[in-house]
């Protein structure tokens, strides 16, 4: 627990000075506040921007930030220094993962306030967002561990992030895209947030999660964290 706390506190100091990662946590919540406050169009679904940006946020922020943090530590060999100081790989991942999860939940709090939800609806919204954030973190961790350096990690994480973040939005306009994107957890998160989720949504999210856990174990065993 001591090592997890140390990594967590290090991550706070580091992120405050790491603008590319910091902006990931702020961008979509800030955009939501601005758009929801400033733009009022007739016939626009209620809290349209909350639903739109919340999905983009879950697909983008956790994935790119954890991927960036892990790949940077690998590239600069700071991770090796931590492992040599008796930090276990699981402790490192827990420290970084917990920090990014809490940052993203901070963003979720903004979405929750802007959505105007309360009581049970609010709790369900937060849980859906938490599930999306955890799966995205897992995706980012797999890419970060698999990549040898930051450049390689970005080359993979960018298209994956675009796919997960934008497919739900594009699927609003195209049936084919909607069918394709239905196999991705971010599309199902979008459906759940929009209130038209089904048992299929939970199933797809569950399958995505299991596949990513398997992928994580395979990559971790093959490449190790260093």
């Amino acid at each position, binding site marked *: 627990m001591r090592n997890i706390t*140390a*990594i967590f*506190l*290090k991550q706070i100091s580091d992120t405050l*000075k790491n603008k590319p990662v910091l902006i990931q946590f702020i961008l979509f919540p800030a955009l939501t506040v601005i758009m929801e406050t400033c733009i009022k169009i007739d016939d626009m679904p209620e809290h349209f921007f909350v639903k739109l940006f919340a999905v983009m946020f879950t697909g983008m922020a956790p994935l790119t930030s954890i991927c960036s943090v892990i790949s940077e530590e690998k590239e600069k*060999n*700071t991770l090796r*220094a931590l*492992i*040599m100081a008796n930090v276990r790989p699981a402790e490192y991942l827990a420290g970084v993962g917990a920090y990014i999860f809490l940052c993203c939940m901070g963003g979720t709090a903004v979405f929750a306030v802007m959505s105007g939800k309360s009581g049970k609806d609010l709790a369900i919204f937060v849980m859906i967002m938490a599930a999306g954030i955890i799966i995205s973190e897992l995706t980012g961790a797999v890419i970060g561990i698999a990549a040898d350096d930051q450049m390689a990690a970005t080359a993979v994480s960018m298209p994956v992030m675009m796919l997960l973040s934008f497919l739900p939005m594009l699927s609003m306009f195209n049936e084919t895209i909607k069918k394709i994107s239905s196999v991705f957890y971010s599309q199902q998160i979008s459906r759940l947030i929009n209130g038209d989720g089904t048992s299929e949504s939970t199933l797809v999210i569950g399958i995505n999660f299991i596949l990513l856990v398997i992928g994580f174990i395979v990559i971790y065993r093959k490449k190790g964290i260093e």
Partner: protein
Amino acid sequence: MNTITAEKLKKSFGNKTVLDEIDLEIKSGEIFGLIGPSGAGKTTLIRIITGQLTRDSGTAHIFGIDSTELSQEDKAHYGIMMDDFGVYDRLSCFDNLKLFARIYRVGNSRINRVMNEVGLADAAHTPASKLSKGMKNRLRLARAFMTEPDILFLDEPTSGLDPAAADGIHKMILDKKAQGRTVFLTTHSMSEAQKLCDHIAMLCDGHIVEYGTPDDICRRYDSKRSIMVHLTDGTDLVLENSTKGAQRLCDLIKMGQAGSIHTSEPDLAEVFMELTGKELTA
């Protein structure tokens, strides 16, 4: 008492044998230098001894404990400074050390003491990205000193530094020896090894080709020792270290032609060259 021992240590990566039948005995309180060119296997040996890497065969012990069975408590007894260990560029020197202080459960007073020790006190709040290479090496050293370890593994601590910065680090290493700590140093600088080390081992292509004190090693290979005579007419004459050379020297002295006489002994770099046919390069 031996602090570190290795017997018949072997390690290969694929078909390439990096370490082959390595035997080592490092005594408590000494500075031991492992010297060899890049790719000789120096870092691999440190990584095996410190339990970062598994060996293929043989044994390695620190304080009598097998390197594969070192507990977290055992590992607190040694500090490692690897040449390629990174620092957190965005964090200040203090924050970099604070992270490791939390991991090692040591207080801020220890951070301040270590920063004073390595001469980083004035740069405590400077981001690591703004430090020179020498200062970054000091930060890495400070990290290795955090737990006041009994053994220090220093992997090329002065690599790429200017002479003044290297001299500062040499002083710190000698201070650690004076405090009774054991230092395991790898270097490709023979002058550094000659200046600091009590014993050295020369590593080449995975084999230890020579072991001993720097002076002993040089003496063992003094067949090339020569005598240089500075003649009164301003020219220099190099004579062989042989009966014939001695006779010629006597003649020069008798004739009053010898202005000054100097002996030339092989240094470690020449010995290494003679043993391996290779030059030491970074």
